[in-house]
Each structure stands twice: as C-alpha cells, then as structure tokens.
C-alpha cells in the first residue's frame, strides 16, 4: 500500500514535537479528498475466492495478540471472503508509529490455503479488541470489531454482538447503489498496562467522502462507551450524508405474523428506534419488515440522543439456542455539542432471513458541507442492554392483527404507578392514512403493561401512520409510540 507523502513528511520532520495526534489523520483525510479516489487494489485470487467455511478456518493465533501485558489485546483478521479490501494497522507507542505488517505466522490456515503464496504487505481485513476486566486477568473478552467498509460493532462484556455501526452512510436508501466508504487505515494507541481506556484513530476513504475518526474506547461489564470525534471532507456534493449510522436486523417480532418456515417467536437484533429530542420528548418507533423499502424521517434540531434498541430481553420470545438475541446490545448515540438542524432517518429494507441487516438509522444534517470544507462533529456511543432508560412508560411491544377490513394495532407500555387507573389517563392519538374506529386503554397486571388497542380502517393504497402517547394530568406518562404500515403491494396477475 502506498502511504501518502504528507504524513510521512510530517512524522519525519517533527516526530517529537508533534507526536501523533488526531490532526495527522485529519490532514490525511483532507489531502485525500483533494486527490481523485482510487479503489483499493485486488487481493490474490486464492484469498478472494474463499467461501464462508474456508474463511472461518483462517484463525488468528491467540498468543500472537498485541499487548499481552496490557488489559487490551488486539487480534487481526486476514483478508478474504467478503472482506477483500486490506486495511493498514499502525500502533502508536512511545511517540512512534509503526506499522503492523501482515505476518502469515499470526494465523493458522485451513487445508487448501498455501500461506507461502501470501504476498508481503498484504494488510489485514480488520481487527478486534479483547479486554481483561480488572481482577480477571487472562479472561480476555472480545468486545469490539472493526471489519469491512466502515463497519464496527461493540458490546458490553456481559453481552453478545448484535447491531453494527459505521463511520458514515452515503446516499443510503436511494435509487442508486450505495457507495460504501471504508476505513483504510487505523492507528491504535498502545494503552498503559493497567489502562481501562484506549484510543484508536481511523482514516475513512470513499468515492464521495473522506474522514478522520478518533474513538476513545471504554469497555465495561454492562456497557461499552465510545466517544467519537469525526471530521468529514466531501469530494463532491452528496445527496444524503448519514452521520453516526447504525445498521441492524429486524426480521419479525412478537406482533408480526411469522413466516411459515420459522419456528421461533421473534428474530431481530433491534426492535425499535428511540429518539430523545431537544424538547425532552421520547419517541419510539417500532421496527417493521414489510414489502418494500420504507424511509421514515424525523426532522428536529440536534437531538439529545437516538439509537436502535433491543428491548425484548426474554429468551422465551426468541427461543434460539444459538443466536442469543436476548443478549444483543442496544446502541445509543448522544451528539456532543450542537449538530444543528437535520433529521433522523430510518431506512427499513425488506428481508426474508435473519442474515441480512435491513435496518439503518442515521442523522442527516440539514446543511451539507461544501466540498473541501471540513464537517467536524462529536458523539458518544453507548452499547448496553436497554439504551438510555427513559423516565417515561416505555413501549415494550407492538402487536398487530387483521380483521375483515380493519387492522388492530396494539401498543403496550410498561406500567409503573400501580395506583393509576385507565380512567385517570388520557390518550393522544394521531392516525394518518386511515380512520380510527375504536380505541381502548387498559392496564393489564398479568403483562405489567398499559395496553392501547386501536382498531383502524386503513385508507386504500395509503401508508398508515400512527402516533400515540399516554398522558396523566396533561403531562406525558409514556413515550410517544409511532408505527407505520405500508399498504399491500399491488402485484400484476
């Protein structure tokens, strides 16, 4: 791989005074944006053609992980299968930057792969981080992976992997194929042996955008926190710029009618989009896998937070002995400072299985930067079980049923305040694309919920959109629940 001369020069000229800092990566990104985009070169064909099983057979040797003396350890992925674009990984230590070269002795290879054919300077596909919690040395738990395009996924140490994040989403959910910028180079700052925090930098490159990222990473038993500083440069005008993107999977849930070949009650990595807006409103949008791509936009000033959550935590509702959906994390994004006006966009793509991510959420700023101008923004990512824990009655389930012509849509809110009765509450319900025929609110002690049941006659051919919340003494008692149902797709006979 070529290394742009500017950085080399910078490092050569003033290593001691400069050391390594975020500005180095920002400068790299700026310079990169000023030159034409170059696709990464191909990897050798015999690696390119690995299938999933073969690729799984390429295993990093645990004892070759970086930093055996520290709490953090780094393991690498070899290129191949879907991960064809090599990335360069550097370690920053003692005011020095050194590149970690691909070394075939890091890996064991399955039969049929001749390690001697691997070219020098191949680069890695990505890397993952392990962490020894204090008091549990040698119990290294994996908690963060950077692998493929600008994807990364994290988890609290006690949880499983689920949804992913990306550096940036460019023109997602539009009519043309989405360009996927990718992290092409990383700088991992070697942590002190006892440190519980580590820092990583990443350079983003794509046909439309470049960027510099700093991740400050704090793993924990129940939560992984990552503070992100990002600077983007546009190579050209971008029709839709998605910041802090989340990518997840929602196949079907408790309220849906499950496909015939599936025996499990629910299959999803996330079940809803939660938004905490600047006015302190909490809005929950239940996810849905339906017949066509659906884009939902929530326009607002900078929100206090948004994220894709996995609220259903009961194995009983998943029943998978392998996938552990009940242990998959929620991911909550908290903008730091003012991101200005914009909108949260939720893109729902139909899927017929659980192996394709089909839910994307991100922030689209109203003002896109001019090309050449940096867009700097910061946010915190919280990977934990339940997201931020809103103070209001949370939406815990959305259910649907069909009547002859009408639809029954049910929202269930976790019921606190056992003293309240349904007569003391008010409902605030808005229905677009249909006629609300009947409303019923009841407390169900057996489920521990307030259950709002709506019977709606959908307007033919229109998208049905519903918004509802519970009020007590005129103040919101619950989150605002929203849901959308597409009209049936007309198919030509």
């Amino acid at each position: 791989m070529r290394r742009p001369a500017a950085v080399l020069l910078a490092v050569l000229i003033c290593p001691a005074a400069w050391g390594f800092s975020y500005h180095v990566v920002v400068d790299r990104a700026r310079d990169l944006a000023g030159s034409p985009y170059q696709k990464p070169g191909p990897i050798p064909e015999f690696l390119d053609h690995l299938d999933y099983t073969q690729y799984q057979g390429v295993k990093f040797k645990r004892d070759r992980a970086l930093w055996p003396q520290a709490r953090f350890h780094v393991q690498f992925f070899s290129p191949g299968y879907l991960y064809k674009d090599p990335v360069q990984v550097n370690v920053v230590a003692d005011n020095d930057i050194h590149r970690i070269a691909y070394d075939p002795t890091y890996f064991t290879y399955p039969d049929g792969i001749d390690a001697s054919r691997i070219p020098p300077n191949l680069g890695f596909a990505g890397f993952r981080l392990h962490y020894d919690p204090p008091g549990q040395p040698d119990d290294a738990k994996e908690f963060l992976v950077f692998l493929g395009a600008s994807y990364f996924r994290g988890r609290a140490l006690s949880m499983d992997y689920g949804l992913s994040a990306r550096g940036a989403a460019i023109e997602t959910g539009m009519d043309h194929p989405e360009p996927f910028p990718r992290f092409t180079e990383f700088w991992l700052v070697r942590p002190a042996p006892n440190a519980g925090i580590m820092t990583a930098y990443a350079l983003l490159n794509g046909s439309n955008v470049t960027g510099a990222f700093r991740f400050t990473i704090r793993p924990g038993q129940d939560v992984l926190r990552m503070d992100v500083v990002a600077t983007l440069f546009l190579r050209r005008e971008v029709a839709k710029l998605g910041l802090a993107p989340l990518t997840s999977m929602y196949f079907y849930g408790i309220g849906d009618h499950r496909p015939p070949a599936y025996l499990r009650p629910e299959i999803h990595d996330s079940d809803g989009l939660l938004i905490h807006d600047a006015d302190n409103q909490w809005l929950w949008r239940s996810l849905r896998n339906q017949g066509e791509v659906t884009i939902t936009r929530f326009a607002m000033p900078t929100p206090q937070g948004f994220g894709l959550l996995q609220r259903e935590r009961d194995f009983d509702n998943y029943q998978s002995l392998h996938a552990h959906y009940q242990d998959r994390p929620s991911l909550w994004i908290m903008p730091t400072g003012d991101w200005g006006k914009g909108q949260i966009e939720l893109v729902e793509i139909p899927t017929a299985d659980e192996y394709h991510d089909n839910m994307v959420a991100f922030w689209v700023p109203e003002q896109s930067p001019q090309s050449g101008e940096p867009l700097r923004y910061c946010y915190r990512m919280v990977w934990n079980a339940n997201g931020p824990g809103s103070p209001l009655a949370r939406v815990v389930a959305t259910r649907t049923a069909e009547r002859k012509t009408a639809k029954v849509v049910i929202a269930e809110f976790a019921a606190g305040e056992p003293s309240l009765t349904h007569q003391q509450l008010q409902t605030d319900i808005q229905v677009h694309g249909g006629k609300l025929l009947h409303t019923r609110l009841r407390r169900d002690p057996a489920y521990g919920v307030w259950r709002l049941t709506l019977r709606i006659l959908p307007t033919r051919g229109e998208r049905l959109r519903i918004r509802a919340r519970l009020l007590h003494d005129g103040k919101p008692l619950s989150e605002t629940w929203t849901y959308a149902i597409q009209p049936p797709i007309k198919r030509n006979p």
Partner: protein
Amino acid sequence: MIVRPQAAILLSLLGAGWAGCHAPPAAAFGYQQVVEQARTLSKSSYKPAPPVPERMADLTFEQWRWIVHTRAHALWPDSNFQVTFFPAGYLFEHPVKIYLVEDGKARHFGFDPSLFQYNPDKIGGPLPAHNGYAGFRLLYPLNRPETHDEVASFLGASYFRMLGAGEAYGLSARGLAIDTGEKSGEEFPVFRAFWLVRPPADAIQMTLYALLDSESMTGAYRFVIHPGDNTVSEVTATLFARKQVKTLGLAPLTSMYFHGYGDHKPERAAFPGAHDSGGLLIHSASGEWIWRGLTNPPVVWIDHFSLPQLRGFGLMQRDRVAEHYAPGQRYAQRPSAWIEPKGDWGPGNVELMQFPIPNETVDNTVAFWVPDQPLTPGQSRRLSYTITWQAGQPIRSPLGRVIHTFVGTEPEGARMFWIDFAGGPLAGLPADAAIEPMVTVQGGTIVKQSLSRNDKIDGWRLAVHVLAKDPDQRPLLRVRLAHDGKVVTETWDRIVFPR
C-alpha cells in the same frame, strides 16, 4: 307439565327402595334411590322435559345472563358450601328438577322467581312462576376464607365444570358422551334432576346426585366434591342402556384449542395463544405417558389411543405463562382436568376428537374413554373415577415432560417440529449426556432430525422434519428420548397435517 312425571318417578323409586332393600323403612335418601330411578326410567322410552315458555327460550345470551341469582341470596348462607341457581331460558330451555336432601329426606325445591335479580323490561316481563332452573353453581371459600367463590357449575345437558384455587373456568366435563363424532349424529344426554345433599356448615366436601337421561341411556351419578388447590370430584355413575350405542364415551372432557405459543398465529390474532387446554395426556397401564399437543385441525379429526388398561387421561393446560396468551381471558389460569379410573375399566381406547374453529369462542376438542366391551340394551354398568381440577399438571409423571412444541413448514412442504423436553430424569444431566432420540413415523419420511441441548430449560430440544408419503397422508409422528437405552420422557405424539 314438568312436575308430575318426576314426582311419579320419585314415588316409584321410594317404593322400590322399601321393597327391595334390607335397609330399614326410614332409610335416608341416598345414591341407591337415584340408581333405582335411573333403572326405572330406562324401562320407558325417552321423553325430554317440557321446555320453558317460548319467550324465555327466545332470550339472547345477553338477556339471559342478566337474570342473576346473586351470591348475597345464595342457599345455605351460613355454610361453607352455598348454592345459586341459573334460570331456564336461552339455550337452556329444558328445566332441571332440583331436590334438597336434608336430614336424610329429599325435598323438591320448586322454582322461586324471587331468587333472581333482573330487569323485567329487558326480558319481556317477569319471570314465569313455574319457569324452572337450568342448573346451579356451588360456592365455597376457595381462595380466601371470607369470600365465597365459585367452585363448580352444572349447566346444560350433562355439562359441568370445576375450579381449583386461583383458577378461571376453562374446559368442561360431561356425564356421558354418546356417539360423538359418529356420522349418525351425537346424542347429548342431559342431567334432568339433581339432589343436593346439604352439608354441615363447616363441611369441606359436598355430595350431590344427578339423574341422567337420553334416547339411549339413563344413569345415576354421585359427585363428591372436595374443593382446594386441586379440586377433586369423585364420580360414581351407574348406567342403564335403553338402546345400543355406537360410541359410549365415558368421563368426557370438552375444551378449546385455537392456537398456541408454538404455532403460527392466525391473521386475526394479536397474541401468541388462545386455548383452554394445550394437550391430551394419557397414562397407560404399561407405564407409558403420551402427550398429544392439541391443534386446530384443518378437518374434523378423530384419534384412538388403544390401551389394555387405563391409568388416567386428561386435557392439560401446561403452559402457565400469561404472556403466551391473549390477555383478559386468563388462559394461563385455566384448570387442567385429570381423569383417574377407580378399579379396572378393562381394555378400550381414549378417543380424541378435534374440529376446526374460526375463533376462540367455540369448543373444538373432546376426549373420553371408550370401553371395548359395549353396553347392550337392558344392561347396566357401574364405574367410578376421580376428576382432578388444578393448575398445570395434576399428576406429575416420573418422566421428562414436553415443555413446548414449535411448528413450521419447509418451503418444500415438510412440516417442522421442535420439541422441548425437560424434567424428570433429564434434570441435572450433563450437557453431553448420551441422550438418544427415538423417533417413529407412519405414513411419512423423516427428512431431518437433530437433537440439541437446551440449557434454558435444563433439557433437550429435538428438531424433526417430516414429509408425508403422499399429499393425502397424515403421518403419525411419535418421539421420545432415551438415556442409556432407557426411556426418560413422555411420548410426544402428533398427527402431521399439511399446513
């Protein structure tokens, strides 16, 4: 008129009692008198009780249910056991006779309109003076010492149902099922008279008798009811055959299965399950326990489980998780009912009939015992059994149990089943224990089978995919698990319908 034939029977019965028994002339009224009534009745042809006045028969359910005999006006107000009555009317158009037995004497308890609270404007006038009763409820301090809650109800044909503590009414039992599922049509015997034996004020059990009548059979029934966490009813029945019947269904149970937690829910359903019973459990004299999960089948379907001797059978509501059911119906609190014969009922079969229903308001499941030996006209037979009404699992088998069944359909048409087994000898076994699935199929092919440890239930999950040999076949699939060559679970048993 209603009164005369019954009075005549009572007289004849008393006469028979005096003439034929060694008991002293002042013999207390008891079961034997009801038996003699049934015997006498069987010698004449069946005459249904005259119906109520037409306007009462025309009442809707909503009108009828608001004619209420309130608990505050129950019979025997100072006793543990109290009684309230249902008025005849609506579908219950043939009144039943009620007798109270006190101090060994049976006394007719005539219809008393003043027992009922109702709005005459809503039912087209006051209750007719001789309207009659449709049935009754028994109240008992079942759940709290100071509150009389319903523990049993006898209403309509030979139907009755009972509750253990903390439960809500679900499945029903009947005195007798005749020709159920036969093309010639089912005969519904009716209890036409009841004798309620007044128990002492502090009694913890109560006895009542009932006279059963139908085209083909008569019978005398004794129920001794012990309320509690498990409400146990001891039943003795003496049957007299007027005519030959095709199917003599003993100890029948009637229930409803629309859909369950492991099924694909119907379009109209918003919640995973709606059923009063989840499965039929059978205990054979060989020691085998068979679990047949109920379905809402695509067609009327009858199964026979042939046994040399019956130890017990019942319709079970095993799944007690509230969130697995539609709310507000208390499906998770519906009782199971377990039938246990006293003495040897001989060879026969448990018959299970299920038929398709469009919603949860209709019963679609019937189970009963059919003895191999028929009852020929003029013959009589006495049998005794207990019905235990309680939460979940009246009888705990020593074997691992079926916890859940999940179903699906492969795109190529094979039906997929996941069967979760746990408990009994499976409990505490290491994850690598040598568990062997024993799978048999008739009329189909196993296209896939795999066994997985299920840590969540401290048990195992068996996945089986079955393809019918041809589209008209309904394979019979039976599955159990063995450990070290020994059967350690119930037999999971299923008719495989196409989706």
